[in-house]
């Protein structure tokens, strides 16, 4: 399993600095995971700035956009298995009437 470590920032910065800061956050988390024993080759750090906010700008939860998320990368056997299982489950239920 390979994991994408995705860094995000809150609104209110210039796009370039937001991308840089989100990348640094992702790399910081990646370093912490490597210290826990995870091979660096299985992690990919990427910064998204505020392209993908989880909460709207004026939301009281907007500070929670300052975060890091983890996504299983396509291409691994685990991703393929989970993806196929989910597709089969959706087809089985949605096609039965």
């Amino acid at each position, binding site marked *: *399993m*390979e*994991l994408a470590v995705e860094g995000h920032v809150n609104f209110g*910065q210039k796009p370039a600095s937001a991308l840089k*800061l989100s990348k*640094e*956050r992702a*790399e*910081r*988390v990646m370093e*912490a*995971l490597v210290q*826990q*024993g*995870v091979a660096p080759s*299985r992690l990919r750090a990427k910064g998204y700035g505020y392209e993908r906010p989880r*909460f*709207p700008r004026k*939301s009281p939860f907007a*500070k*929670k956009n*300052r*975060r*890091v*998320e*983890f*996504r*299983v990368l396509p*291409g*691994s*056997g*685990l*991703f*393929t*298995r*989970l*993806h196929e*299982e*989910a*597709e089969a*489950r*959706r087809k089985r*239920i*949605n096609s*039965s*009437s």
Partner: protein
Amino acid sequence: MLFRTQTQAKLSEYPPPDTCTYTRSSCVHCAARTVLSPPAQRLTRALLVLCWCSGRYRFKLEITETDAEPGSFRSSRRFNSSRRLQLDHLKTKETFILPGTQTRYFLDEYANEPIIPGEDFNVNVKWRFKKVGGQAPSAGWIGSSKTVEVHTKDLEEPAALLESRVPRVHIQEILSFKTNQAVISGGAAALPAIAHLMLEYVLYAESLHASASFSLSPLPFLPFPFVCVIFFLFLSSFVQAFRHGACG
């Protein structure tokens, strides 16, 4: 109003996974029940069953009964309609238009992202009928169920692998940072759990690499005359070397 229908569903908190057996209005295993409360004089009714049996963080919607449309022919009663499932989540909406013949919908994603633990949803089902012979009621979504509030189960462990079409690792406490800094200020307790997950699924990393064949590779891409020339040059050089060696 002939088509006003009220439906209410209540969900159990910790349902058993995988198996689900429906009766006409409820799920036996997860005890998802529908409460039908139309006045007796109403001609139409609909039931909406929300079921958690398919998993902890996804659920299955099933409409077990729908209205009969007055004013239209009986042949068009069998779901010659389209149905809309409408979700409210953080003041945003997502709508699914489904064919009228479909009575079930499997919901495990919202805005192309998997539904995560601890989320709140409002689910509402609307439907309409195909106009037949000019006798159907006015156009639009004329049938509607009552809005049902749904709360997905909260995550118990620090980190877990969410199984969906877009699998990802979800952490119980959000990993937060100090303002304008790359310094972790909260949620660091989830990092050992994520590392444990990564080590647990280490075998799946091997399938990333392509397979290699160690058998003798054929030469179908080399034309036969070219192979003959190479062989002839090799043979002649060998003979030349042998002659020089024999003479010298």
